[in-house]
């Protein structure tokens, strides 16, 4: 199954970029992440500093995603820490 053999890229912005020192993360193909909830769990294990944030949303293809939404490497996935525009 394609979903499990290609790693998934996750775009980072704002403080998540500062925390990781990177502008994108790679979720390995063998991590078994197929939903937003799964991604959040994986992030919590690998980047405990994210848990200190006021919130951390996941965007899929430029829209806010829900925990149950499925995700895969063909989508544009991004972490959205608390916004502060305006």
């Amino acid at each position, binding site marked *: 199954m394609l979903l499990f053999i290609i790693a998934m890229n996750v*775009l980072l912005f704002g*403080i998540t970029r500062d925390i990781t020192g990177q502008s994108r993360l790679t979720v390995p193909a063998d991590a078994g992440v197929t939903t937003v909830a799964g991604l959040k769990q994986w992030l919590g294990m690998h980047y405990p500093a994210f848990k200190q944030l006021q919130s951390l949303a996941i*965007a899929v293809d430029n*829209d806010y995603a829900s925990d149950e939404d499925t995700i895969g490497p063909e989508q544009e996935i991004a972490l959205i820490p608390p*916004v502060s*525009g*305006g």
Partner: protein
Amino acid sequence: MLIRLVEHIDLNEAFAYLNSPTAGAVNFFIGTVRNQTKGKEVLHLDFEAYDAMALTQMEKLANIAMHKWPLVGVAVIHATGAKQPGTPVVLIGVSSAHREASFEACRFLIDELKKSVPIWKKEYFEDNSVWVNAHP
């Protein structure tokens, strides 16, 4: 709809876009960089956007406003990059036949933009820098 991420905000351009013989009311909200936060002097700021998603979300909000109120035109413009105190960083512009709608839609758009559009502000003080709102 005029939906933009820009380096510099141009008020006249927005007014020229919104003004129309069928509109009697034009409202603007312009957010500018303040020189202090909780009494601490802000030296400068940096605005970072997730460009593609920010534009998508700004357009979505403009569409909601167009459906909620009888508007003639909507402009949602945000600046990105390094900014000095006193600089305009966000402009919401709304035109409509009557002022009730333009006032309400303008307020709605800036309130919602601040909640959901993926743009981040980093404030630089004398001794440190902070991503605004990041931590509880």
